[in-house]
């Protein structure tokens, strides 16, 4: 009897202690959050925003430092991360649309495989396209009156995020001539303000920060957002800009633009990779589940902070932060395109801009 009691209490103690023992304690450790970009880009801003919050929520409050490993449009850092194995949970890697696009397009420099990694958090953004006031007057919710105008657009390159707006305008039958080689969307906006470019787009936070001012002064007319994804994966109005129609709506209203078929599927695939699932935080391949869960819980606590919506709005925009299984699903949809969509985009890049990726 006593023996049995003892056994039971030992078993009970073991059960109680079990999870406690397995709990990951990171006190005194330094977590390196590596991003494959320089100190100056949007990903740096994103990681620097999350780093101190993450530190507060992880058990033992480890120091979280952001490290930069720029090179070859982020493929260098991603190739490096592919080589890393799980050690003690002190390494996080952050990717962005610029890491996803070369992967999706089959860039020869890519030697990384997204499905090997363990996603713990994903966040996104939206985008708004706008026109100069003269041509903006001709915009009536469809692009029908914009089809015989020549537009100029300051672009970072057709294989970057700019693929999404360029393909959208192309599908609307608009004639947009990209001037390649600018260094960031800010430079594109400046070109628009100077009147050298006549059409532009900005991600949500930059639109709110600067372009919305232009709209207020009558120096720009908003045309469309790229939209946002609902739970079923359908495109709906962007919650940040409920008054601006989505590209889907404009496309439906425009003669010759289809919201089904291979062009639409290709556009949507790259839109998802570039905007709603733009930035993802990964743990290296081979990370045990308890460590993954610890990080998931910490990111979950971060996004549930009372003040999160306010502070995030300035930094990463008012968009959903996915964690855990949702982050995993988001990562899957952001890093897979159908072979048809890929072939369509590669073909379009070659025909429209002479860009080949080999």
């Amino acid at each position: 009897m006593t023996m049995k009691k003892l056994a039971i209490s030992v078993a009970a103690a073991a059960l109680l202690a079990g999870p406690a023992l397995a709990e990951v304690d990171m006190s005194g450790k330094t977590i390196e959050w590596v991003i494959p970009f320089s100190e100056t880009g949007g990903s740096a801003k994103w990681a620097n925003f999350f780093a101190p919050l993450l530190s507060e929520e992880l058990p033992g409050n480890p120091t979280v430092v952001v490290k930069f490993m720029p090179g070859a449009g982020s493929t260098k850092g991603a190739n490096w991360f592919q080589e890393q194995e799980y050690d003690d949970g002190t390494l996080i890697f952050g990717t962005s649309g610029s890491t996803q696009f070369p992967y999706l397009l089959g860039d020869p420099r890519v030697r990384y495989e997204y499905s090997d990694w363990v996603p713990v958090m994903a966040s996104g953004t939206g985008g708004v396209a706008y026109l100069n006031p003269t041509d903006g007057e001709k915009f009536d919710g469809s692009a029908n009156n914009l089809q015989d105008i020549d537009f100029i657009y300051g672009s970072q390159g057709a294989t970057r995020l700019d693929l999404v707006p360029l393909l959208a305008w192309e599908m609307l039958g608009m004639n947009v001539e990209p001037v390649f080689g600018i260094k960031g969307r800010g430079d594109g906006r400046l070109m628009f303000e100077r009147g050298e470019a006549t059409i532009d787009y900005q991600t949500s936070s930059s639109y709110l920060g600067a372009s919305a001012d232009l709209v207020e002064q009558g120096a720009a007319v908003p045309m469309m957002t790229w939209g946002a994804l609902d739970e079923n994966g359908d495109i709906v109005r962007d919650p940040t800009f409920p008054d601006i129609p989505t590209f889907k709506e404009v496309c439906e209203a425009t003669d010759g633009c289809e919201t089904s078929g291979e062009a639409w599927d290709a556009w949507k695939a790259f839109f998802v990779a570039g905007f709603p699932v733009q930035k993802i935080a990964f743990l290296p391949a081979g990370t045990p589940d308890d460590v993954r869960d610890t990080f998931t819980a910490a990111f979950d606590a971060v996004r549930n902070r009372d003040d999160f919506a306010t502070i995030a709005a300035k930094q990463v925009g008012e968009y959903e932060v996915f964690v855990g299984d949702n982050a995993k699903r988001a990562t899957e949809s952001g890093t897979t395109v159908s072979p048809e969509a890929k072939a369509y985009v590669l073909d379009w890049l070659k025909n429209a801009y002479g860009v080949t990726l080999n």
Partner: protein
Amino acid sequence: MDLFADALPALGQAWEMILQPAVLGYLVLGVVMGLAVGVFPGLGGIAGLSLLLPFMFGMDPLMGLALMVGMVAVVPTSDTFASVLMGIPGSSASQATVLDGFPMAKKGQAARALSAAFTSSLFGGLVGAMFLTMFIVVARPLVLAFGLPEMLMISILGLSMVAVLAGRVALKGLAAAGLGMLIGTIGEADAGGSLRMATYDIPYLTDGLKLVIVGLGIFAVPEIVSLLRQDRAIAKEAKLGAGWGVGVRDWFANKWLSLRCSLIGVVVGVIPGLGGSVVDWIAYGHAVQTTKDKSNFGKGEIRGVIGPESSNNAKEGGGLVPTLLFGIPGSGSMAIFIGAIALLGSGDIEVGPSMLRDNLDITYSIVWLLALANVVGTLLCIAASGGIAKLTTIRFTYLAPFLFMLISFAAFQSGQNFEDILALFTIGLIGIFLRRFDWSRPAFLIGFVLSNPVEKFSNQAFQIASFRFRSSFQEGMDYIFSPIVIVLLIITVVSVVLGLRQAKSIMAEGDVKAGSKRAPLVFLLIIMAYVVAALINANMIPDYNLTDKIVPLVIGGITLAALLILLVQMILRPETDTIFADKESSGEDADAPYGLWPTLAWFGGLIAATWVLGFILALTGFLIAFLRVRAQASWTKTLIMTAGGLALMCVMAGALNRDFPPGLLQDVTDMPWPLN
């Protein structure tokens, strides 16, 4: 304009906000940290600011701004130490300072050069702040007047400074600049992504070479190697001449030059997209053109120090305009600055067009915090300059291993690749031979710096212009020949004509005697081989990517033409002609007790050992071997100095959270920091 009605009260509020003990305390703290980071070449504001970022979250906006502004403001001041004392351009802001500052240090006038430089920096910073206070409220439309053709013209004006700095044989200067531009085009093209002289098999090359590495390679490596071969102190006879008071008087005697260069600095700094890299060359060119007796430039002319130093701090102020008003960072550190501002307080300071309307007081606070930081930083630097200048009296053989250590570390920080150090060595070799055969190194560097802007702006301006011409001829002409473009065009032409006339008297490398025909001819042929290879390579880019090939083809063509003319001249002229200038035939280098290759082998050895053992282990071996064998130091001295060097590296890297280059050993073993 009601902005003016708002401006004065906002200015008053700004001063009230700044003049709080806590704010000033943070400012001083920032300045001290900035000085500590800035004296090391190649680190500068970006490393320092990234270090501060984690603390910015939720910090009181003013305190945070004071800390950050203090740090950013003093980098162009403190980097002067490295450029004047060691001939190492600490950042792109102090490249032109090396030209005359370092020769002054060699003459034992380091303290004088430093204090003149610091006084100019201070004055430039203050002029910049004052100019901005008035200008910032009306800046927006003026900044928008600078379109692509205007920016292209400014880049070309910068390029025209090659004429002044071309050296005694103008064609050699032209070819050096062309070579610099071609090397600047290496990697993936901005416009179409074609590869120039690069392959995806060597990913390092696809990103192109970094300015830090080229600056260090072209200026620092040749000087370090040359001094090391001569085995003496930097200051001849190891004596310090004129003190810091003389430098301040020098500045006063040249106050108008300083004022003009400050204005050049702030105006060029205001234009987004150009950044600071051209400013100091334009200021240097201006200093040369407005000096009657030009014979001292390149040999230690104080005006050559005052000009660029006045402009580079003023430029920081000017750079605030695109940063704060447009949200477009003028430099890497400004980009982090923008990001950090959003972290401050509750995040309601929004950089961009609304900054002037909603946060004019904060804007003014930033402008004047910058000015105050300049004052504090300059006073600290002047106070330190006398002591630090004594470094130039130490036997150089004791300094050199630490300089190799510093420049390797600095180069590695630019990209975190082992290839960074290899690139430094390669560019260093080019620098050594450019110096030896009297090909203008400043021209090479200007070409490199402006290669990207010239290519980018000409391609983009051409595209937009052709678009305008399609709508009407008049519209196209109006676009290309705006009043600003015409004014800049006139300035450029005048400066080229004057520059060519003056170039002969400016000997950046000193009076280099001609030697035999063979060595200079071989060097010319090597350059020609590279240019031909680059031309063939560019020509292979398919025509639909014309934007990626046109600039390398045109620049390569001009360079090749210059080289061919030089080749003909070399065949025709006698070997006493200045075209055959060779430092190894007579002068300091020729008389040096040590040869070039054995000296360079030490640096090569450090790099090779790093490849195998990782940086820290390699450095330990290198320092001990160098000090024992080359410097013949006692064991005690060797060990103390080695320990000191290692400690310095570890403290610096540890504090800034930087890594060291790993080697093969680190691939197979798992070692603790700093060995990993």
